[in-house]
């Protein structure tokens, strides 16, 4: 198989307050079938062999379901493929001799820990703010006891596909978390089971989002375009509607 040489410019930063910069590296013998992260693994093994500090980056499942990986590759979060995470990106996307710039997510609410790793626990704060849902327990209900229109169920499921990777924040010029919040709000709000706390959830999540230092929405839709799970901008309109209804008619 043909091997490629890839030039990298990788953001290196020793710690949260250390100065950072783009450092050039060259990786030889890159096999097109390697995933992008495997290519970084190869780089790291070379760095370790030379006694240098390997590049810190996050990953876990490496099959696009956990949302742990996240890099801005040549200026686009998760790289050039649509509806895919970094771990699903393969080196066959690149040519011999290409130069690739790799940066971490950049947002005030996602402080940098090291190199390409950022602290996304702000998303956990948002989930905490969303509170609980009241679900009846007890004997298993009849299958059709709670009727849910098909389109509602679909929209809820589509929103539930969010893996919380933070690419929406990384792509947004305002580093807004609103696509993430809207996915969570639509996921629960579309279903009858999520209705009880719906208006409280919306207001608490938006308040928390503002406190955490995320920006507001400019309706550009860069988030939707980079989202590996293709969460729709329509969820944000739904969130806005829900917020207005809760504030003006919901007594909140």
């Amino acid at each position, binding site marked *: 198989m043909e091997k490629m040489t890839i030039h990298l410019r990788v*953001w290196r930063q020793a710690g949260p307050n250390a100065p950072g910069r783009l450092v050039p590296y060259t990786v030889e013998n890159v096999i097109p079938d390697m995933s992008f992260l495997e290519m970084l693994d190869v780089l790291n093994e070379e760095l370790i062999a030379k006694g240098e500090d390997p590049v810190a980056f996050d990953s876990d499942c490496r099959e696009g379901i956990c949302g742990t990986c996240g890099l801005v590759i040549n200026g686009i*979060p998760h790289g050039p493929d649509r509806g895919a995470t970094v771990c699903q990106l393969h080196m066959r996307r690149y040519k011999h001799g290409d130069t690739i*710039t790799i940066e971490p997510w950049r947002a005030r609410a996602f402080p940098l820990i090291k190199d390409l790793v950022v602290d996304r626990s702000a998303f956990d704060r948002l989930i905490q703010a969303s509170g609980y849902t009241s679900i009846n327990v007890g004997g298993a209900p009849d299958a059709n006891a709670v009727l849910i229109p098909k389109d509602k169920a679909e929209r809820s499921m589509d929103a539930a596909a969010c893996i919380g990777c933070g690419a929406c924040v990384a792509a947004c010029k305002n580093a807004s978390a609103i696509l993430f919040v809207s996915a969570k709000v639509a996921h629960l709000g579309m279903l009858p089971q999520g209705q009880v706390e719906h208006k409280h959830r919306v207001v608490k999540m938006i308040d928390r989002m503002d406190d955490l230092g995320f*920006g507001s*929405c400019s*309706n*550009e839709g860069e988030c939707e375009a980079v989202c590996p799970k293709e969460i729709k901008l*329509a969820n944000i309109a739904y*969130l806005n509607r829900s*917020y207005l209804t809760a504030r003006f008619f919901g007594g909140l």
Partner: protein
Amino acid sequence: MATLWRAVSSSVGTKVVIALSGLALFAYLILHLIGNLFIFLGPAALNGWGHTLISNPLVVPAEIGLLLIFLIHVYKAALNWWDNRHARPTSYAEKKWAHHTSRKNVGSTTMIWTGALILLFVAIHVSAFKYGAFYEPPAWEPGVRDLYGLVVHTFLNPLWAGFYVACLVLAGVHLRHGIASSFQSLGADGPRFTPAIMLIGYLLAVVIAAGFAFIPVWVYFRLG
């Protein structure tokens, strides 16, 4: 009241206020453009229209209302822009437009700048026309302002005509994102509605900009 204040101060509420005030200003632009069309009916029509407007006792409250809406729009948008700048203290070394489904365009990326220039333009425009030279129409109803004469006199100067056309292009760029985006901020969205409003917003931006810009061009080339 406290609730209302909290609601309009949140990120979502801020965008709702910007959207509502923006749409109100857009509605005013349509009325303004319709009024401007009187110029094509000749001096008597335009001056008569202007006279009817300022003789109406409601015009002062309406002007104050319009000014308030304008100031709210400017204030909220500037504040929002300032807050958003702080949401990303370290910028990317390399950042590209994502394209694909993204609605990002020249308008959406320059809102604050086109907005600032429009603010400047409005100040110049109001001082040049509303508070500009007062011509009495020759041998016509005394006390009526010769707006037609003022418009023609101003736009026969190529610098004024060119300046207006340039500013109206900026206004078009601002509206190109602004109109459709307002509906998204207000939560108006639907599988058929959204593509339609995006297209209509774009077309209206062109119509408004071209409609207003036509007057200086027409005066300069046809009456010059």
